[in-house]
């Protein structure tokens, strides 16, 4: 890619990444949430890969890493959901066991922000893995 594209990408990427994090963290207050934020974060990484390209080996390493991160994040999601089975002795799957706080403040809504963060990481890693897998396949097969 040309130098212009690379410079612009360099400037924009961090902002896009931060915006994704903002969307995830404010998921229970404003539109958006784990899915939207995660996709935006994945988008920022994909932009970087497209603009700068990358060594084949680095791509392979990134793919393994993001795939592991994805599995880990969704395992955490399941663990938080299943924790409800053990906490409080009532045995309810997906119970919101943390204090709810006041509606509208950043630290509120119990486990919902935790779910948002786990889902955000999972979605970002998942989309990045799909993209990298396609890219690696195209390089490998030629």
């Amino acid at each position, binding site marked *: 890619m040309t130098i212009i594209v690379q410079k612009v990408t360099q400037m924009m990427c961090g902002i896009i990444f931060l915006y994704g994090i903002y969307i995830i963290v404010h998921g229970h*207050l404003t*539109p958006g949430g784990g*899915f939207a934020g995660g996709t935006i974060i994945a988008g920022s990484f994909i932009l970087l890969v497209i603009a700068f390209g990358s060594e084949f080996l680095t791509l392979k390493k990134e793919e393994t890493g993001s795939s592991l991160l994805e599995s880990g994040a969704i395992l955490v999601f399941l663990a938080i959901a299943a924790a409800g089975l053990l906490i409080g002795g009532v045995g309810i799957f997906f119970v919101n066991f943390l204090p709810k706080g006041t*509606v509208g403040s950043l630290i509120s809504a119990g486990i919902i922000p935790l779910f948002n963060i786990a889902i955000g990481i999972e979605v970002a890693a998942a989309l990045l893995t*799909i993209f990298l*897998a*396609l890219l690696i*396949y*195209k390089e490998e097969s030629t």
Partner: protein
Amino acid sequence: MTIYLLCIALFLVGLYGVVAKRNLIKMVIGIAIMEYSINLFLILIGYVKGGTAPILSADGAQRIFVDPLPQAMVLTAIVIGLATTALLLAIAIRLYKKYNTFDIREIKKLKG
């Protein structure tokens, strides 16, 4: 009523693409279009006249909200659609590398 009918027409256009087209990418696009029309259909069902997005504002004013449940359903459906499309595209590119064409008739011919 017209809006629902147009939405179903979009669904039928997608169905036409899947059934009549013989190009793998076109078939994927057809499935995706059907997916979009169903998403739109669910959201149309959930719309309430004069309603606003179901987000409580800081001023605490009472408003009419649109139905949040179809929105949650459509969010799920979008992600499912993304998953299906990604898997279909992966298989399509794999088939392309094997046969050097996206056309399903050519693929059948080459397979013999």
